[in-house]
């Protein structure tokens, strides 16, 4: 049993998915999230246990809708998808072979599925006999913060003339060739995670990672009907951002080194107070954006409020305050009730200036 298993306690680890990795990459400085995710801790449960349940999660209706659209696109041996790929990418009629890797002979263990994914993709890349065109439910592996995680993708990988694409099926509508910008951006961020993971897999197999295309096929319902349509989405920008963020992610080993050996988030043996203290002892970097992407956000916000932290004001304000950690300190420097240390002289002067402007304005 390694350190991360001790942290989690005797429960099965939660899988990463593109959503969690995209969220992690958005806030790369947060040790707390990195550690909890790396250990596969159920953050939802932990947050509820320590008294800050997240009003968070996907609506059951949205999940059902997404699942039914996904099933529609993949029904009858991906009949809809083949039509779309033939129309948009000119896939030849003879390429229709399909492999489902949601289990291997009834065995759905991660290692088995990942091994099979690698084998099938390698065979397809070699272009030999019996190579497939479509790969449903491939299980990818990704190194996040120095720790390997399995990535459960809801996607299909497919190859055309030796080049591999990621197909992302989303249930938001494309009306008049226009889709909701926020949804498309989120889809692009998630697809970028898959493209990145697929490229890592290729590199590990000694293949050229560039054979995985940066063009993602996005399949959505067209207009107001339930008829699927496909568009190509260039994720080069998201991919570059993701790569940069992942490389900056604090390494888990360094965080673990600073923790005592018997440190644990185990919900069964620890009281809520103890778990709360344990979670609190790992540094977090709260930002108001966390509220929409992290289950621990309410806990971190309460903590930041308790400390009067400048994190509460958002990233822009925090960065503008240049190294001042707490709101009372900022106010103290502004009204000169607190003497500035030598390195705070510059910011203190600015704050006093702002305060003067403010009092003149409201006088």
């Amino acid at each position: 049993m390694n350190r991360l298993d001790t942290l989690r306690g005797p429960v099965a680890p939660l899988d990463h998915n593109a959503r969690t990795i995209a969220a992690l990459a958005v806030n790369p400085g947060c040790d707390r999230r990195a550690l909890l995710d790396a250990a596969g801790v159920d953050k939802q449960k932990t947050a509820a246990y320590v008294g800050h349940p997240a009003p968070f999660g996907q609506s059951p209706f949205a999940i059902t809708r997404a699942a039914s659209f996904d099933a529609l696109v993949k029904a009858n041996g991906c009949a809809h998808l083949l039509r779309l790929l033939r129309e948009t990418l000119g896939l030849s009629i003879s390429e229709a072979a399909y492999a489902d890797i949601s289990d291997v002979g009834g065995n759905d263990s991660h290692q088995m599925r990942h091994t099979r994914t690698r084998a099938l993709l390698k065979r397809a890349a070699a272009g030999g006999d019996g190579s497939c065109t479509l790969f449903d439910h491939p299980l990818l592996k990704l190194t996040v913060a120095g720790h390997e995680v399995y990535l459960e993708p809801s996607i299909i990988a497919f190859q055309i003339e030796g080049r591999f694409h990621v197909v992302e099926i989303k249930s938001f509508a494309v009306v008049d060739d226009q889709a909701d910008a926020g949804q498309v951006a989120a889809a692009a961020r998630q697809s970028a995670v898959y493209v990145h993971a697929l490229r890592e897999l290729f590199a590990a197999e000694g293949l050229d990672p560039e054979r995985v295309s940066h063009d993602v096929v996005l399949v959505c319902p067209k207009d107001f009907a339930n008829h699927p349509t496909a568009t190509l989405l260039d994720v080069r920008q998201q991919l570059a951002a993701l790569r940069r963020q992942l490389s900056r992610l604090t390494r888990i080993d360094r965080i673990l080194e600073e923790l005592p050996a018997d440190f644990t988030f185990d919900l069964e043996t620890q009281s809520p107070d103890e778990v709360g203290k344990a979670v609190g002892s790992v540094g977090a970097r709260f930002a108001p954006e966390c509220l929409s992407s992290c289950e621990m956000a309410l806990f971190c916000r309460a903590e930041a409020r308790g400390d009067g932290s400048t994190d509460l004001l958002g990233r822009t304000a925090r960065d503008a305050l240049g190294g001042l950690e707490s709101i009372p300190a900022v106010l103290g420097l502004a009204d000169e009730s607190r003497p500035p240390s030598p390195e705070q002289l510059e910011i203190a002067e600015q704050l006093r200036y702002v305060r003067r402007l403010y009092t003149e304005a409201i006088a």
Partner: protein
Amino acid sequence: MPISKLGTSPPTDERTRALSIASCHRYWKTAGASGIDRLLLGLLIRSPTVELDALERRIAELRAQVRAAKAAADHATVRLLRAELRKTERAWDDALDPEPEPAQAPSLSVREQVHQALTLLGVPTAGKMIVAVNEAFFAGRVTAGQLTSLRRDEEKSFRTSPYARPYYLCAALTSELLSPARGLLAVSTWPAQIRIIGPLSPRTDFLTSAIRIAEHIARLIHAGEDASLAAYRLLTGMAQNIPGAVDGFDRAEPAQVIAAAGAELTIHRESDMHERGQAAKRAEKQLDQVTRLFGAGLKTARTA
């Protein structure tokens, strides 16, 4: 509400009936004509025991009258009374089974209905398609939920007494591992290679089932009756994903679908059949009679 219209029994033995009706009627009048009271009254008067009692008394009475008329050698009256006796006896029979089932198609079990749909399609098929075909061409009383445990039940039945039934609904096997393919149902009497799913098989099976459905609609048209709306909807939905099978969102024409699907099928068929044939031979050699039908999983090799 006139009292005479309340009952359906013949107008004999009025005393008991009139008593109960009158008391009910009185109650109804005093209690006020709320909906529930009306319902109670209706139930009391139409209650089968009251009706049957009256009919039985009437039958006994008629029999006595028939005997008396016979003794008096009054043949005309005997005939009349006998006719009425038969009528009353029929009414008694009807009253005994108050709501006979409305005439319906002979009710097949879920298993038989699934077999019917699979026989039409001729290839291993997912539950959703079986339900759609059943709805389009047959009784349409199978729901997706009923199919979930079907394969397991069939396997259990086969294990306890192999080949006791004429056919079993079994699994399709994946070509590489000979494990049961997810969500597909097949019929045990099909040749082994039809029940194998290779990489190209999802596509060829889809094309084959589109052809089979189109052929069935053509048969129905040829026989002088048209297929249901659901059948055309099913065919059109499938045809939209076959190149050249349908123009835009028009209704699919069976002949055009058969031609287009057949054209694509010729491209895939050879390599698909080769793959399936090889796997079928392997299955023949490596598997026992149970796993040949229901697949060999890797589950047994899993260690905790």
